[in-house]
């Protein structure tokens, strides 16, 4: 369970939010209204005041890297720090097991990132976070550059993670996807979130 109380940073909040274990919540709203600010704050990538707990443990009671390994944030634009795709995985074996589920073939890890398609890069970036088996996931438009087949595979992966007990927050502008993934929908506007009608 991810619990947020009074999360505040310039341009955002205060935000109160709860995502239960095994719950997937969809967040939407026009661009520039604070979605990325919120995700960065939830992942503790930017300073923000307020209280956040994961399964009862406060953010401040664990080191930053520990929090982020458990509350995995996947940015809308995948970014890379090494030439080879495989270099971005600590556990290449774990990654290899999950490749097929995302419609990727084994050779993809031995390729240069620059030679991969946008779609392959987006799925690899998601996989990078999935193999950590996080307790919560913050996904910013995880299927934005995917065709319908691959979007379906990614949704299935998210669903599998949710069924395993993760608390998941997905940003999407796709209404159909939102209905498929989530029971609860939030709208962000002007740095504040409200529950949307289901």
């Amino acid at each position, binding site marked *: 369970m991810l619990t947020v109380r009074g999360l505040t940073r310039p341009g955002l909040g205060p935000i109160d939010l709860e995502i239960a274990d095994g719950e997937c919540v969809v967040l939407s709203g026009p661009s520039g209204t604070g979605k990325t600010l919120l995700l960065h704050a939830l992942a503790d*990538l*930017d300073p923000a005041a307020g209280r956040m707990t994961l399964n009862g443990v406060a953010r401040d009671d664990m*080191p930053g890297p520990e929090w982020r*390994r458990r509350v995995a944030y996947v940015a809308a634009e995948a970014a*890379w*720090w090494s030439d080879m795709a495989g270099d971005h995985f600590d556990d290449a074996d774990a990654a290899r097991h999950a490749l097929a589920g995302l419609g990727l073939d084994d050779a993809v890890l031995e390729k240069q990132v620059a030679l991969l398609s946008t779609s392959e890069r987006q799925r690899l970036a998601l996989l*990078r976070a999935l193999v*950590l088996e996080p307790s919560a996931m913050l996904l910013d438009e995880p299927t934005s550059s995917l065709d319908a087949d691959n979007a379906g595979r990614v949704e299935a992966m998210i669903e599998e993670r949710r069924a395993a007990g993760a608390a998941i927050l997905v940003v999407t502008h796709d209404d159909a996807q939102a209905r498929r993934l989530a029971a609860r929908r939030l709208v962000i506007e002007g740095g504040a979130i409200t529950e949307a009608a289901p």
Partner: protein
Amino acid sequence: MSFITLSYADLVLASLLLLFAGALSVVLGLGLERNLAVAAARMVVQLTLVGLVLKTLFALVSPWWTGTAALAMVLFAGREVMARQKRGLGGAWTYGLGTASLMLAGTVITGLALTTQIRPDPWFDPRYALPILGMVLGNTMNGVSIGLDRLLTAAARERAAIEARLALGHDRRRALSHLVRDACRAGMMHIVNAMSAAGLVSLPGMMTGQILAGVAPVEAVKYQILIMFLLAGATGIGVLAAVFAAAWRLTDDRHRLRLDRLAQAGDGGKTTGM
């Protein structure tokens, strides 16, 4: 030792070459004559002043005056490092970090050379201490400014990649490791190149000077080798200290990337964040 003393008439004669260069600039419309004249005048005044200061310091052989001169050199070198940053760390850090690294490298290496290898009597004799510190600072200054500039520019440019690493639970040391490595390499590269080219492409200035002053070439070479080792050690210490401290300053104790601590592009010392 025997060396040929120059008369002032010799210098006047040589300055005709400058007039020739200035005349060329006028004839070809290069617009350089003013810059040439100002630079030449500055050079003459600065060097004359330094000559007089050194003459006084050498006569005094005082630890306090030598120390004061050394401190002034470090502060000037620090200013030069700051001026070469496209984006500084903001506030007192912009000047302080480079200067502190130079102070560390300069003190350790010059102190080591004076007390263990060259061993003048007294050890702080300015005739040895100041030239060595000058060479150490000049080289370390280049390395530190290149290393810092590389790190800070890359951190701003590769924000997304660094944050992707942090988001996967990498700690700050790991998330910045590829940038820190690049910055240290860049900062060390010129001393590596200087050592590789020494004797083949370039005759190092100090060695040339000693030979002109009548020192036997083999003795001058021994001195130059010692100096090269000192420069390599000092550049290593200075670059490492500056780059690691800057990487530390760019992140906080929650291992977040804090680009808000960087000065805005182009406004020197100011900063927007805490």
